[in-house]
């Protein structure tokens, strides 16, 4: 009787993920056995691990599938993973500073961030609806815990529960959509789906399935009308966790969105395009309008990120290489804008206590001109005013849209950006025009550096965008080849 031989799958493509998973487990042990508080140590080890993982991802084999076609790497996934790791690593540094101030430094905190990031890496590389779901859930479950990490705080707990309940619902939608797709197309593999969808006929069942998948994904990137959880969770969660929420999962989520829609469902572009156009317009409009009345800067940032997701989705609507390039470049700029802004928010401390009302910024330009200038640069960038990188981000997106004939969408987007400019300007008004409120404590070293670097990068990216755009372009090419 012949013994069935199982060939061992090739692990090399997944080295970064394996490294991260193993380190996470090892660090848990380290934290438990080390009697002293090891948050800082663990944080820095994780930052190094993430850097190494990014290095491994960049140097890894290109265009490769493994684990029975569940897992894929190519130029696109590499770019997306590096962005995600960058976002996660930078916020991790912010988290560490804060955790010590708030006296809730626990080594589990950075490890949860590492797990969430691992989930994002997996979903970016997913080549099957099953592996997509597993990656997404690993990310989501870690994020639920992170939202409620400040467990003695009522608001944080509430945010965690809210996030969990609604997140579970979205996961359910996604899973239900996947099952419909599987039922009607007969496979969950992306390549198989692409072939099945292309050869058609695409029955109503598969279309409904795709719509459910889109709904699930839209929830994860908090696009309108699936955004309701965002302001509450952003406000309730501890600030650096909010920073993390607004960056890495958004980047990973949008990259995943792009991969799913232009990968397996590319041939159905006419069907899903309408849905994304609607989501995009609603997000841009509601993100700008609802932000106007906000008093808490964290809620403001929630609506701001909803608006930015709307702009990025225009790149997805276009659905070609140019659109993907615009989206990726936008995400890159978005990453640094948000990291920088949250660094400023984290330096809003009066006598050791964190404050988060917009009015607390009053007169910052007199009390702390450096911080005010950094935030002003970031706000102008968010509003998309040249000469800041935010303008180029929007420019690349809108160029792609106009080129593909979506002129109305571009006009709506640009008008929404004027409304959006109003509330970004309001922050500047409060900092520069209003009479000073109580002065903030000087920002911590890491926070200060991150703030300064990201605001300087807004100008640098604007002056020499070519290398970054080339990177985004290579990634977009790989996406459409694969």
């Amino acid at each position: 009787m012949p013994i069935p031989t199982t060939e061992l799958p090739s692990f090399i493509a997944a080295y970064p993920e394996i490294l991260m998973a193993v380190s996470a487990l090892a660090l848990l042990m380290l934290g438990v056995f080390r009697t002293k508080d090891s948050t800082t140590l663990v944080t820095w080890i994780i930052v190094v691990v993430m850097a190494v993982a990014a290095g491994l991802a960049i140097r890894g084999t290109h265009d490769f599938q493994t684990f029975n076609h569940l897992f894929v790497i190519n130029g696109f996934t590499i770019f997306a993973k590096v962005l995600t790791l960058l976002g996660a690593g930078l916020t991790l540094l912010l988290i560490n500073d804060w955790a010590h101030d708030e006296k809730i430094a626990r080594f589990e905190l950075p490890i949860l961030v590492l797990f969430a990031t691992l989930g994002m890496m997996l979903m970016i590389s997913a080549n099957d609806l099953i592996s997509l779901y597993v990656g997404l859930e690993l990310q989501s479950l870690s994020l639920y815990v992170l939202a409620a990490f400040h467990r003695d705080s009522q608001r944080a707990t509430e945010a965690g529960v809210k996030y969990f309940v609604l997140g579970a619902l979205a996961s359910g939608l996604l899973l239900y959509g996947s099952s419909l797709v599987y039922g009607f197309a007969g496979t969950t593999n992306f390549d198989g789906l692409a072939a099945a969808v292309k050869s058609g006929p695409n029955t109503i069942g598969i279309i409904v399935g795709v719509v459910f998948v889109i709904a699930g994904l839209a929830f994860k990137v908090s696009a309108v009308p699936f955004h309701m959880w965002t302001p509450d969770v952003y406000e309730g969660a501890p600030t650096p966790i909010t920073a993390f929420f607004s960056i890495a999962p958004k980047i990973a989520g949008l990259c995943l969105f792009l991969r799913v829609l232009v990968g397996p469902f590319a041939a159905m572009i006419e069907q899903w395009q309408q849905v994304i156009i609607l989501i995009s317009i609603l997000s841009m409009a509601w993100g700008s309008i609802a932000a106007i009345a906000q008093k808490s800067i964290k809620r403001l940032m929630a609506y701001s990120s909803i608006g930015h997701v709307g702009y990025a989705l225009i790149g997805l609507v276009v659905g070609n290489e140019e659109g993907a390039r615009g989206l990726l470049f936008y995400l890159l700029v978005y990453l640094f804008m948000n990291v920088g802004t949250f660094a400023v928010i984290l330096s809003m401390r009066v006598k050791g206590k964190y404050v988060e009302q917009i009015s607390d910024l009053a007169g910052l330009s007199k009390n702390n001109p450096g911080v005010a200038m950094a935030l002003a640069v970031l706000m102008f960038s968010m509003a998309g005013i040249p000469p800041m990188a935010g303008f180029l981000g929007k420019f690349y997106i809108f160029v792609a849209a106009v080129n593909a004939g979506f002129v109305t969408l571009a006009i709506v987007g640009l008008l929404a950006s004027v409304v959006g400019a109003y509330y970004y300007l309001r922050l500047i008004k409060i900092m520069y025009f209003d009479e000073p409120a109580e002065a903030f404590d000087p920002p911590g070293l890491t926070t200060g550096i991150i703030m300064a670097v990201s605001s300087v990068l807004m100008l640098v990216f604007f002056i020499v965008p070519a290398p970054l755009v080339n990177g985004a372009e290579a990634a977009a090419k790989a996406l459409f080849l694969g």
Partner: protein
Amino acid sequence: MTALSNFITHLPILSAITFLPIVGALFILMIRGDAEVVARQSRYVALWTTLFTFLLSLVIWFQFENGTANFQFEERFAWLPQYKISYHMGVDGISMLFVLLSTFLTPICILASWESIQKMVREYMIAFLVLETMMVGMFCAMDMVLFYVFFEGVLIPMFLIIGVWGGGRRVYSAFKFFLYTLTGSVLLLVALLAMYFQVGTTDIPEMMAFKFSRDIQFWLWLGMFASFAVKVPMWPVHTWLPDAHVDAPTAGSVILAGVLLKMGGYGFLRFSLPMLPDASLYFAPLVFGLSVIAVIYTSLVALVQTDMKKLIAYSSVAHMGYVTIGVFAATQQAVEGAIFQMLSHGVVSAALFLCVGVVYDRLHTRDIDRYGGLVNNMPKYAFAFMIFMLASVGLPGTAGFVGEFLVLTGTFQVSSWVALLAATGVVLGAAYMLYLYRRVVYGELTKSDVKEMLDLEPREIAILAPIIVVVMWMGIYPMSFLDVMDASVANLLKNYHDALAAKAAEIAPFGSNLLAWLR
């Protein structure tokens, strides 16, 4: 000597002029010390930087070749290679004088703010230097995206200047200024993107050579119009201007009236007219109509103002009405007149705002009724104010006359009615300016606080004297300015009329029946 001139010709001089102020701003950022020292040093660094920038900009005037319509002092570097968008700078006879206008007014603004600005002096000076970079860059940009970047970039420092150092409802005015202009600008951006996909590049000379199809021209024209009309500003989108002027600090008003309004007129000349000739002809009656309304209506509004700055702001709208008429009349005299009017309005209205600033610094009110009889205790001031007032009225021998005269002459050849109606603005202009002057400068010197006002101090004389020289020079020997623009304007109009002649039969201007009836 040859080595020196060789060096100057090979120096990227436009970039040097554009970015020198930024270098000054970086120096100001590095100043350390207590508040007093920082403020004093910032003022000096800003003054010397802007003066040096002005001197450097004189070099391009001396080196400029008058006989040609070509772009000169060109520079080009790749910037966004995927889209063939480059950092392309250059000036021709139309834009060169605006560069000089910007560099001429900025040091004056710095001097005008010497004592009136006491809070956050460092930031103020940085804002002005950044503003100068944006203005100069905008007039030098030879790539449409680059143009747009500078065009919008101007908003940032100006927003802060009005909002931080302004008075009255400064926050409201700053927001109104910013959002009005931004709304117009984004439509310009859409038009720009649409044009880019027609031409395949955003290089301005190449876009000028491209023939856009007629149908698309109308939409593109409207997109640009939304932006430039707000900037000029044309009636009925002028309402941001009086607010912005009233609440801005003196130097802010000076730059706003002196340079920022010219961006709209310059935009029409650089983009609408040469790139979209069919649409420009089609919409010319619309522009004429709005401009005539602007000239007459805002002049009447100016007549009843009680706030000096508001009065001059409304007069700016009226004066810019001549510019838009001149541009779209599209005859040699009219277009040169429009450019000349922009330059003369640039210095004259700037000077008028400075004159308001002088008395505002002393009495801290802009209410016309609070003054009166200033000629008795401020004779030097009365003299300077009179020169600028007469220039604004358009008295022959001053700068204001040449521009208005050329515009009206040129327009008369196209439409006598438009010229006639616009000419009423000259009369109304005389009315409100003389009325203002009478109320402020003449009359009995009765009010006790006005009696105590001192005449111009040396710093103020240093600010106003160069402007008087320029105003008289422009009025007495305008050829030194007209010569510069001759070739470029002739070339612009030749291309414009050639493009129209090719399709002459097809285009009936918008409302042409109405116009025929008017004739």
